[in-house]
C-alpha cells in the first residue's frame, strides 16, 4: 500500500516537473510582458517535431536537440515576441491572449498538415529500468526527469536572483519605467525571458515526448495543465508555478490510480476551480493592486 502510494507520488512528481517547466514559462512571460501564452503547449509540441526532422536526416540525438533548442529560441523566442507579442500587446492583454490562441490552432493544424495525425515515437535520452529504494520501485526515467527539471528550475532561479542581468530582468518585470530610467534595456530583458521560455519548452518536449509521443494535439492538454499549474501556484510567483506543476502531477496520478483513470485529466481543472474559489491569488501568489 505504502509502496504503491510512494511509487505513484514519485512518477506524479516527474510528470508534474514537466508541467512545471511549461508553467514557469507562463509565469515568466506574464511577469515581464503581461503575455498569457495560450500557445504554450504548442511551444512544447512543435520542438518535438523539429527534433524528429533533424533525427530523420540521420543526426545524432544530442545534436538534433541542440539545433532544436536554437530553432525554438529563434521561432518561439525572438519570432513570437517580434511577430505576435510586440504588435498585439499595444491593444491590450485580451487581444494578445486571443492571438496566442489563434497561433496555437495554426501550429496544431500546421504540424498535422506536414507530419500527419499519427503519433510518433521520440528517442529517450533517459535510461530504462527500475531500482528499488526502501521497497519502492522507482524508474530511472522518473528520477532523471526530476533531476533535470529541478536543475533547470534551480538554475533559472539562481540566474534571476544571483546575477546582475537576472536582477535587471526582475526589475524590468516589476517596474519597467523605473528600470528604463536607470539605463536598463527593458526590451532586451523581456526578450531574454522569451528565450528562456522557449528553452524550457524545448527541454519539456525532450522529456515528455518519449512517453506521451509526439502528436499534433499533444500541446492542448499539456498547455492547459501548465496554465492551471501556474494559476494554482500563483501566476506571479515562479516557485508557485513549480509547486502547482508538481501538485497537479501527483494528484492526477493518484486520481487515475485510486479513483478512475478517465477522470485523471480532470484533476488539474478541479484543483484549479478549488483554488480560484478559495484562494484566487494562488497558493503562493501575491495579491496585486492594479490602478485604472
Amino acid at each position, binding site marked *: 500500500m505504502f509502496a504503491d502510494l510512494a511509487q505513484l507520488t514519485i512518477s506524479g512528481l516527474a510528470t508534474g516537473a514537466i508541467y512545471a517547466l511549461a508553467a514557469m514559462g507562463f509565469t515568466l512571460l506574464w511577469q515581464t510582458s503581461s503575455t498569457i501564452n495560450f500557445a504554450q503547449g504548442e511551444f512544447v509540441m512543435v520542438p518535438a517535431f523539429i527534433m524528429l526532422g533533424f533525427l530523420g536526416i540521420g543526426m545524432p540525438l544530442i545534436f538534433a536537440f541542440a539545433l532544436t533548442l536554437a530553432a525554438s529560441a529563434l521561432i518561439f523566442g525572438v519570432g513570437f515576441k517580434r511577430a505576435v507579442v510586440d504588435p498585439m500587446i499595444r491593444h491590450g492583454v485580451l487581444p494578445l491572449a486571443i492571438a496566442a490562441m489563434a497561433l496555437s490552432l495554426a501550429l496544431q493544424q500546421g504540424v498535422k498538415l506536414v507530419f500527419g495525425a499519427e503519433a510518433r515515437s521520440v528517442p529517450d535520452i533517459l535510461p530504462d529500468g527500475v531500482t528499488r529504494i526502501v521497497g519502492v520501485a522507482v524508474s530511472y526515467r522518473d528520477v532523471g526527469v526530476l533531476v533535470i527539471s529541478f536543475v533547470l528550475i534551480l538554475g533559472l532561479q539562481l540566474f534571476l536572483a544571483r546575477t546582475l542581468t537576472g*536582477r535587471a530582468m*526582475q*526589475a524590468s518585470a*516589476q517596474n519597467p519605467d*523605473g528600470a528604463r*530610467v*536607470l*539605463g*536598463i534595456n527593458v526590451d532586451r530583458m523581456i526578450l531574454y525571458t522569451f528565450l528562456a521560455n522557449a528553452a524550457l519548452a524545448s527541454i519539456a518536449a525532450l522529456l515528455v515526448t518519449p512517453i506521451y509521443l509526439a502528436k499534433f494535439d499533444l500541446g492542448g492538454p499539456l498547455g492547459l495543465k501548465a496554465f492551471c499549474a501556474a494559476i494554482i501556484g500563483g501566476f506571479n510567483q515562479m516557485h508557485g508555478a513549480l509547486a502547482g506543476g508538481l501538485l497537479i502531477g501527483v494528484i492526477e496520478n493518484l486520481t487515475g490510480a485510486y479513483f478512475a483513470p478517465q477522470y485523471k485529466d480532470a484533476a488539474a481543472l478541479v484543483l484549479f476551480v478549488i483554488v480560484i474559489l478559495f484562494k484566487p491569488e494562488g497558493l503562493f501568489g501575491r495579491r496585486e493592486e492594479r490602478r485604472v
Partner: protein
Amino acid sequence: MAPETSGAAVRLDGIVAGYGQITILNGLSFTAPAAKITTLIGANGAGKSTVFKTIFGIVRPRAGSVTIGGEAVTGFPARELLARGIVYVPQGRNLFPTLSVRHNLELGGITLGSRALIAQRMEAVFARFPRIAERAEQQASALSGGEQKQLEIGRALLLEPKVVLIDEPSIGLAPKVVADVFALLRGLADTGVTTLMVEQNVRSALAVSDHAVALEGGRVAIEGPAGEMLANPRIKSLFLGGHMEQTG
C-alpha cells in the same frame, strides 16, 4: 561622494513636445544654471514633468533643442544621458519592491559596466545614507516612504551625476523627511551638481532653490531668482490656482 566634474547648465530652446496629438510644451525656452537648484513650478498640466521627460529622451520633442554643458543632447536615449552624468528620479515610487535595498542600489550603476566600480560607489552611498546601509539586505518594499526616497536619490548618486532631474521629491513624505530631502539636494548643488526639481510644495522648494521657472500652458510665464519669485504676487496667484498672464 562629491562629483569630480563641475555642474553643467541645462538649456532648453524652443521645445515643442507632447503626447500623440496633444501638445504640452509650446516653444519652451529656459536655462537652468550650472551647479544651482532650479525649481519648475506651475499648475497641473502646465508641462513640468513633460520637461523632464523631454530632457531625458522619454518624450521626443517635435521642435527645439536640449543642450547640457554645451552639448546638444536632444532625444538622446537614457543610456547616453546616464553616461554623461545626467540622472532622472521620476515622480512616485521607482523602486523594485521584491529586490533588496542593496540590489535596488546596484541597478543604479548598471551602465557603469564594472562590478568593482559599482561596489565602490555603493559603499560611498551607504556611507552617506547610514539608514539605507542598515537595511541593505531587506526588501525595498519594507522601507518607509522617506527611506525609499533616500534610496532613489542614493541610487541616482551612484553615477556621480553632473545633472539631477528630480520630480516631486516631497510627495507622500512627512514634513521632517521633506526637509531632509531638500537639505540633501541643497548639499548636492553646493558640491557642483546642477539640480532641476519639479515640486508642488512650492514654498519649501523655493526656499532651498537658487532659480525658479514658472510654467503656464507649456511656456515660461515668469522666471528668476527663487527668493524673488517667492515674493512675486503673480506667483502667489499661481499658488491659489489663479490664472497667470503670459509674459515675454
